[in-house]
Structure formats: structure tokens, C-alpha cells
């Protein structure tokens, strides 16, 4: 019985016609999802590399540091101008939340890199609003039909890359992981003041997360837990500096540290020539 049903159905059958349209729509969506995933993977990798680059900015050679910062800035902007623009164009006229899972990994890693860059260079991170500004793209609208090469006013349309605020904070939580790495590395390289500064900074972020009601956001809860572990490690680093530093009078500690950093200071001085 069934066999003839299938055979009888020709391409003009209304059901078949309907489903051909449906199929095209599903394919379009799936293809777009796949394209966005690919861009997101690129963003993830490049962001990780930028973070790695930034870790090497733990140097006291100011020109070297500046050089690294400039490179990081450039590469972050390239991500914004290329990869994110690519996603934004894919998402134009589409609900970004439909494709969020395709690019969430890339976005979070990018934010982690961006905030780490901001913190290292300026000692502060910028609120997400500033980022939103950068995620607006002006796309020239090509006049269609009109083939004459006269000088015309080219109008632009604005395309926006939407990043849900939760993504920003998930990236921020990851960013504290990099701060912990930096804090502990600092101890190794004698950058004691920075240890305290970073530790306090992460304390602020931790209290920020504590103060919000994140029930229903499992991912945030998970990251707060990791954040707390990082913070405890940093606090222990600061504790160690303090307890060791207290073995000799404060004024002598300063001497000792300076003595140990003699060469470094010299090099730093050279920076003023």
C-alpha cells in the first residue's frame, strides 16, 4: 500500500512543494551555523595566542612592553575588524541568540584576551558598553541597478555584533585565571607590589560575582567556583610575601628587595636616557 503513496507523489504534490521550501530553510540555517563555528574557532585560537603574547609582557623593559602591547592591540583589533565582522554579517537580520552556541567559545576567549590586555596596559578593565561601540560596523550599501560610474553618495548601513552580557562576564571570570598566572609569576620575578595589586583586583571581581544573583546560570556558578580557587592561591602568595617579609624589619626588607633588584633598576634607569 505505502509504496504507491510514495510513487504517486510527484513534485507538484502540495506537501512536497511545502517541504522543499522547508528543506531549503533548514539548510540555510545549518550552513550559516557551520560558517559561524569556523570563524569562532579561529577567534579562539588567535585569542589564546594573544594571551600568551601578553604574558611575555611581564618585563621591565618599557619599550619591549610597549611593543608587545601595540602588537596585542593590533591583533585584537584585527579580530574585531575581520572575524567578528564576519560573524556580524552572518548574523545580520538574524536573531543572534539562535546562533549563540556557535560562537560563544570564541567570544569568551576574545573577552578574556581583551580584558587581560586592558588590565595590563591601563590597570583597569573597561565596561562592556565600550566594547559594544567597537562591535558596530558601517557597511557601504552598494547602489544596485545603477551601473553608471558617476560619483554617488555612498550610504552605509550599520551592522552590530551582539554579545550577550552574560558572555562578557563568563569571559571576565576566565580572565581572572590569567591574572592568577600573572600574580604567581610576579612573585618569581620579584614584582611584589603587583602581586598585592592583582590579588586585590581579583578580590573585587570575586565580590562582584558574590553580590549578584546568579541562580539559574549554571555556567556562572561553575566559574565563580574556579575564580575562588584562583583567588585563594593568590591570597596565599601575598600571605607568603608578608610572612617572609616580616622576618626582618620593614625598612630592611625594602633594602633587600632593592639590592636584589639592583640590576633591574639599572636597566630601568637606562630607559630614561
Amino acid at each position, binding site marked *: *500500500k*505505502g509504496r504507491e*503513496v*510514495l510513487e504517486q*507523489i510527484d513534485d507538484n*504534490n*502540495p*506537501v*512536497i512543494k*511545502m*517541504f*522543499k521550501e*522547508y*528543506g531549503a*530553510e*533548514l*539548510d540555510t540555517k*545549518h550552513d550559516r551555523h557551520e560558517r559561524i563555528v569556523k570563524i569562532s574557532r579561529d577567534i579562539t585560537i588567535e585569542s589564546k595566542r594573544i594571551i600568551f603574547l601578553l604574558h611575555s609582557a611581564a618585563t621591565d623593559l618599557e619599550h619591549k612592553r610597549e611593543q608587545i602591547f601595540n602588537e596585542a592591540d593590533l591583533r585584537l583589533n584585527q579580530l574585531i575588524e575581520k572575524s567578528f565582522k564576519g560573524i556580524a554579517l552572518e548574523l545580520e*537580520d*538574524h*536573531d*543572534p*541568540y*539562535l546562533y*549563540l552556541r556557535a560562537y560563544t567559545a570564541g567570544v569568551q576567549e576574545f573577552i578574556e584576551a581583551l580584558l587581560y590586555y586592558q588590565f595590563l596596559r591601563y590597570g*583597569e*578593565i573597561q*565596561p*562592556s558598553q565600550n566594547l559594544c561601540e567597537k562591535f558596530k560596523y558601517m557597511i557601504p550599501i552598494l547602489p544596485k541597478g545603477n551601473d553608471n560610474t558617476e560619483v554617488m553618495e555612498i550610504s552605509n548601513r550599520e551592522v552590530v555584533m551582539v554579545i*550577550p*552580557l*552574560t558572555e562578557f*562576564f563568563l569571559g571576565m571570570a576566565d580572565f581572572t585565571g590569567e591574572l592568577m598566572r600573572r600574580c604567581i609569576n610576579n612573585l618569581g620575578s620579584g614584582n611584589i607590589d603587583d602581586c598585592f595589586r592583582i590579588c*586585590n*583586583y581579583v578580590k*573585587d*571581581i570575586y*565580590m*562582584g*560575582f558574590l*553580590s*549578584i*544573583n*546568579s541562580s*539559574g*546560570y549554571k555556567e556562572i556558578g561553575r566559574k565563580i567556583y574556579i575564580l575562588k580557587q584562583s583567588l585563594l592561591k593568590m591570597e596565599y602568595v601575598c600571605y607568603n610575601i608578608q610572612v617572609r617579609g616580616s622576618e626582618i624589619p620593614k625598612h630592611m626588607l625594602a633594602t633587600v628587595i632593592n639590592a636584589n633588584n639592583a640590576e633591574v633598576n639599572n636597566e630601568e634607569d637606562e630607559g630614561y636616557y
Partner: protein
Amino acid sequence: MSNIIMTEIFTSFQDYLHSEQNVREEIRNIVKEIEKNAREILTVLQIIHQENGAQQTSSSCLKARQLFEEVRENYKKLSAIVPSGQYYRFNDHWRYVTQRLCFLAALTVFLEVGILVSINTVAEILGVKVQASEGFHLDLEDYLMGLLQLCSELARFAVNSVTSGDYNRPLEISKFVGELNAGFRLLNLKNDSLRKRFDALKYDVKKIEEVVYDLSIRGLKPGSASTEATTE
């Protein structure tokens, strides 16, 4: 927190989360209402499986149509709450019930006129748009899920029709589900819930075919030439 910038950053985050939670709360309340509507429509249409359900079909459809009016109003409220362009942010709340309502709308239309309802018509029945760009819309995948649910119901309906002595209905269902099956085969489904649900469609098709087969070998298939031949 000594750091003022940080305080501000998190305050705005809390505001964001808070307003989101409020929106979700409102959505949940409306969705509960819609679920209640759906449950009522389903109960009304269950009459078809009863022994003498056939006679009451049209009055059941009528009742269902009235209940769909409430559904429309509730979807209107929902669309007023969901911010434009954020349909898929909150989608999980109403996805399931929407699929159910697609099924119920499709069942109603099938019972009324025996044809496959289009996504446009379902959207109309629910009082939502078809295109995402126009506003609160009916997701294509939800519509398709509803159709798959319909097939399961029809397989059951085919069985119970025979019990009620209606030998015509199974043939009608067989043709209808056969076409739907052919339609679904045109779709390139990903490995998602839709694909999984579609895989289950086979069993419904199989069941229906078995019913039709049972009717033919017993010569109960209306209007078939072989009926006479076999029963003799």
C-alpha cells in the same frame, strides 16, 4: 568593594540579570496558561479515540477552535514581553508547548478537512508571525515537530477507527502520513531532536500500514476490487 568601576560594572550586570529574570518569570506565567489551553484542547480532541467518537468529531473541532482563541490571546501577551530580536534567548520556555499546539492545530485541520495544514495557517491559528523578521514567530522546527507528533496520534487513531468500525479513516490516514513521510525525507536533518523524532516516524508509518494491510486481507478495505475476491 573598594574599586568603584568594578562596582558599577557588576551593578549593571545585576540589573541585567534581574530584568532578565523578571522577563523569564512573566514568560513562565503566560506559558503556564498556554499549557493549560493545550491540555484542554487535547482533552477535547481525545474524543476521536472513543468508540463512538466519529459522530462528535466536528463538535470537538469547534470547541478546539474556541480554545485556540485563548491561545492566540496568550501568544499576543507573550510577543509583547519578548524583546524584538531575542526570540531565541527565551525560546526554551515556550518551545515545547508550541510544538504541542502545532500538533493540535494540525490535528484539528486534518479532522475538519483532511489536509496538511501549512505553517502559515498554524501561525495564524496561534496568532503569531511566520517570518522571524516580522516579530514573534512560529519556528519552522517547532512546526515540523508538531507534524511528527500528529503522525503518532494518527497511528493511534487508525487503530481505534477500526475498533469503532470505521474502515475508511485508516486509508485516509495512510495516504496523509505517507505524503508527510515523503516530505520529511526531503529534509537534510542534523543530528538533533528533530532527526530523532523523525526516526520514530517509521514506527507510526509501519503501524498504519499494518492496519491497512489487515483491512485488505480481510476484504474490509472500502472500494477495493480485491475485497470481493478475497472474501469469497
